[in-house]
């Protein structure tokens, strides 16, 4: 039966309710097993030696002393992870990032690893490994790295996307451009133009659970990997390819995951753990320390962005232009490209142009972080939009409403929008009580909009009906924040049964077909689509079995509220058969009943949000306090509203940290100076107020229930909303994130002095 994914309006029974999640009790009793909570018999402890230099040639590594230490079972270097990537440049970069080959490219870059009988021996062994480095000049700042005299990080990189093929290598890996119309002409029609430059510093996803895995390679060539990941199927492919294994022989089980936010979509230590296990012939557990998490995993890009926007007196934007430079770490990525696509996505623009530059620096390889690249672009654009509204003496909300994209608008990155939520979120904000709350002295209010694409992708689900009528749902998208509850609700909805009759699990890579990562807010969107399809397939079988039990044609059997019902005059005296009754007879009517689904979920449906916040600034110290915060976002359809609110609040809190506190601080020596939660300070409970949420539901036409991804958009507006609030409170435009007290104070003093 062909599955029709289109939205069809319906009255929901289960979807939209707020039951307790199926994995909840294990998580409040300490029983849930995360990456580091798993052990195997005979397991060794793995540890990684990391470069203390930002940029250095590795002349020689002498591991002989470490190998001789009692209790050391394996020592590996890049030589133990030979290059099997066969010209695949992206895979080569992953390999090189897991274990430096010829050069260490950042402070924290792995250069060797050991497996030993205990942690103490492993630590001792690391100290016995001698690495001979030739230190090279380094560069960690995105703007400096673009200069002609900057130290070259990779001399095989020539900028892509330029009209003329460059003759000299460069730290700029790629130029990308988006837009339409003629911005030059557009600015010609503007009465007011705002032009500004902005900077944002690098931040880390900051998941509380460090990367952890247990790898076990057997002598028969099979292997098991237990790991905290957002995508165990992708980890399997990457690890298998890097180790020269067949993917089917590597079974990857995703543990409970203690936060990811994009940071657990990339392999880091897993190939190293597998290589150690292969060499030692024993299972190896490898858990990163917090210091390693900061120095060698994550983070997001640091950016430098120029924005220019022009408008007519009536408030119509005539042209918008941005140049965006994103740091990628030492390997090519497409972070600037994504930033350039999202920058003006909220607006209806006749003339728009964005140019992105992807820049190599001696910092860790940039990883996805919740709506990657979008928050920084939104910070720059939404700050300029606010300033322009001021020049026009227009209310910032009204100015945005006037220029907001609508259904049918050609987006700044190309596609034409379907039904979208930017206008409705702005209208909701305009009418929100928060906008009328009184502001005290030194307090300012700011608002801003944000956009994210949302992903769909490959998804596979198994729905098995037990003989007792209970239903188990096996999904392949990792549950990062309550998706098992949401997917159970969806299955309950479709089957017409009670939520308590269902249990959802995340299946390992050998038990289910391939699934893409849980990234791009795709988990609930795509797996719910597959769940609906699997349930519909199961219903077809349930109807067949009921027809058999009644001895009538299946065409006369319909499925209503969890029951098979015989339709038609002639069947008037047949009662109903519940799912449970049909399941109980399944052994006699053809065996187990199940529904499967394998699909590519298309049309994830773009997502928009508008945030409001009130900030108090102490003009004497530059310190800030968040007074009120409100998130308004379109969810398409909120499957489990409480977890949707949770996503909104969590994204906002991360954005608040990014806007006000968090940043990677590098010394002149190119070393990270704040690789710990004490000095890299994420928001704590006492830093934040309650975070108010408003869920709008503008159905996604490409999902049967109208669901859109909800996980990421909430981190897009906060940087800008807070910058606008701080600027209003302090009376000076803030252009550098984070707005830490010294930066705010400097801005206030410069304004006073100037």
């Amino acid at each position: 039966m062909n599955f029709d994914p289109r939205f069809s309006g319906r009255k929901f029974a289960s979807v939209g309710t707020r039951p307790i999640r199926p994995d909840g009790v294990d998580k409040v009793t300490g029983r849930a097993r995360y990456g580091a909570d798993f052990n195997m018999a005979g397991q060794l402890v793995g540890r990684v030696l990391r470069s203390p230099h930002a940029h250095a040639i590795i002349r020689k590594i002498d591991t002989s002393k470490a190998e001789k230490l009692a209790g050391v079972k394996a020592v590996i270097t890049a030589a133990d992870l030979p290059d099997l990537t066969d010209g695949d440049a992206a895979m080569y970069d992953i390999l090189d990032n897991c274990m430096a080959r010829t050069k260490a490219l950042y402070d924290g870059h792995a250069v060797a690893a050991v497996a030993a009988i205990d942690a103490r021996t492993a630590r001792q062994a690391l100290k016995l490994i001698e690495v001979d480095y030739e230190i090279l000049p380094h560069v960690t700042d995105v703007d400096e790295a673009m200069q002609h005299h900057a130290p070259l990080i990779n001399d095989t990189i020539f900028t892509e996307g330029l009209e003329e093929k460059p003759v000299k290598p460069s730290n700029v890996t790629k130029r990308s451009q988006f837009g339409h119309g003629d911005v030059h002409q557009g600015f010609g029609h503007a009465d007011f133009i705002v032009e500004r430059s902005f900077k944002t510093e690098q931040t880390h996803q900051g998941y509380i659970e460090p990367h952890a895995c247990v790898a076990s390679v057997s002598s028969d060539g099979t292997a098991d990997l237990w790991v905290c990941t957002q995508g165990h199927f992708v980890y399997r492919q990457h690890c298998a390819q890097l180790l020269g294994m067949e993917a089917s022989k590597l079974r990857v089980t995703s543990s409970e995951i203690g936060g990811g936010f994009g940071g657990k979509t990339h392999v880091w230590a897993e190939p190293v753990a597998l290589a150690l296990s292969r060499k030692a012939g024993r299972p190896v557990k490898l858990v990163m320390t917090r210091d390693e998490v900061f120095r060698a995993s994550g983070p997001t890009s640091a950016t430098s962005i120029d924005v220019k926007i022009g408008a007519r007196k009536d408030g119509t934007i005539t042209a918008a232009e941005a140049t965006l430079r994103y740091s990628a770490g030492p390997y090519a990525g497409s972070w600037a490209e994504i930033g350039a696509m999202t920058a003006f996505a909220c607006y209806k623009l006749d003339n728009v142009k964005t140019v992105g530059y992807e820049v190599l620096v001696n910092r860790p390889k940039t990883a996805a972080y919740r709506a990657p690249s979008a928050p920084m672009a939104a910070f720059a654009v939404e700050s300029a939009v606010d300033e322009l509204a001021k020049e026009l003496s227009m209310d910032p909300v009204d100015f945005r409403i006037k220029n907001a994209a609508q259904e049918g608008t050609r987006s700044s990155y190309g596609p034409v929008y379907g039904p979208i939520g930017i206008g409705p979120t702005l209208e909701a904000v305009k009418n929100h009580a928060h906008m009328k709350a009184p502001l005290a002295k030194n307090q300012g209010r700011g608002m801003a909009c944000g956009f994210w694409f949302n992903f769909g992708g490959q998804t596979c689900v198994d729905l098995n009906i037990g003989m007792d009528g209970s239903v188990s749902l096996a999904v392949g998208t990792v549950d990062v924040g309550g998706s098992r509850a949401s997917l159970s609700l969806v299955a309950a909805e479709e089957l017409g049964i009670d939520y308590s009759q269902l249990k959802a699990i995340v299946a390992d890579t050998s038990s289910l077909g391939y699934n893409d990562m849980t990234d791009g807010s795709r988990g609930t969107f795509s797996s719910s689509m597959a769940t609906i399809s699997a349930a519909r397939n199961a219903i077809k079988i349930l109807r067949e079995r009921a027809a058999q039990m009644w001895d009538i044609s299946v065409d006369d059997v319909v499925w209503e509220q969890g029951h098979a019902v015989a339709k038609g005059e002639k069947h008037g005296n047949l009662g109903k058969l519940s799912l449970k009754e049909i399941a109980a007879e399944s052994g006699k009517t053809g065996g187990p009943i199940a529904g499967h689904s394998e699909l590519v979920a298309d049309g994830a449906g773009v997502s928009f949000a508008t945030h409001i916040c009130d900030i108090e600034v102490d003009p004497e110290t530059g310190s800030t306090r968040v007074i009120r915060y409100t998130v308004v976002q379109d969810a398409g359809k909120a499957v489990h509203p409480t977890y949707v609110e949770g996503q909104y609040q969590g994204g906002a809190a991360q954005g608040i940290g990014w806007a006000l506190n968090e940043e990677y601080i590098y010394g002149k020596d190119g070393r990270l100076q704040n690789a710990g939660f004490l000095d890299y300070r994420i928001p704590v409970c006492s830093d934040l107020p309650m975070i108010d949420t408003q869920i709008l539901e503008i159905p996604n036409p490409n999902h049967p229930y109208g669901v859109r991804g909800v996980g990421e958009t909430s981190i897009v507006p906060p940087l800008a909303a807070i910058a606008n609030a701080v600027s209003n409170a302090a009376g000076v435009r803030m252009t550098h994130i984070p707005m830490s007290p010294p930066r705010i104070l400097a801005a206030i003093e410069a304004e006073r002095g100037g």
Partner: protein
Amino acid sequence: MAGIAVSTTINGDITEYLCQPDETLLDVLRDRLGLTGAKEGCGTGDCGACSIILDNRLVCSCLVLGAEAEGRRIETVEGMAHGDQLHTLQQKFLEHAALQCGICTPGFLIAAKDLLAKNPDPSEEEIRFGLAGNLCRCTGYDKIVRAVQDAAHVMKGA
């Protein structure tokens, strides 16, 4: 290196173990005793994921040595429920969805239990400051604070 013999009480049960002099109590709980409810988020006392109650004091078990537990009384998340009866805080955390990934949850539950033991009727601000030693990256704390408020309300009535 010879181990140190320790006798202590964990969740009401007398427990004995050998540990190295430089081994943290967190490592002992997790690696020697299989009590993996306490998590290591940082190992430096900055995240609270490893929170336990040691003789009525809330501590980061990553900052306590295993050997220091001799003769003392330890409470961990594994001891919060009575049989299949969840502690009110555990129940309220579930009802309010005060966890997303849940890695911080054991630490928050222990810290909240300690807070309510000392202050059964905390204001929102007292809750926020009382839990400021525990990091959560997923929730923005809103639902955690509400769960603790609700639990305090129920526990007062009980």
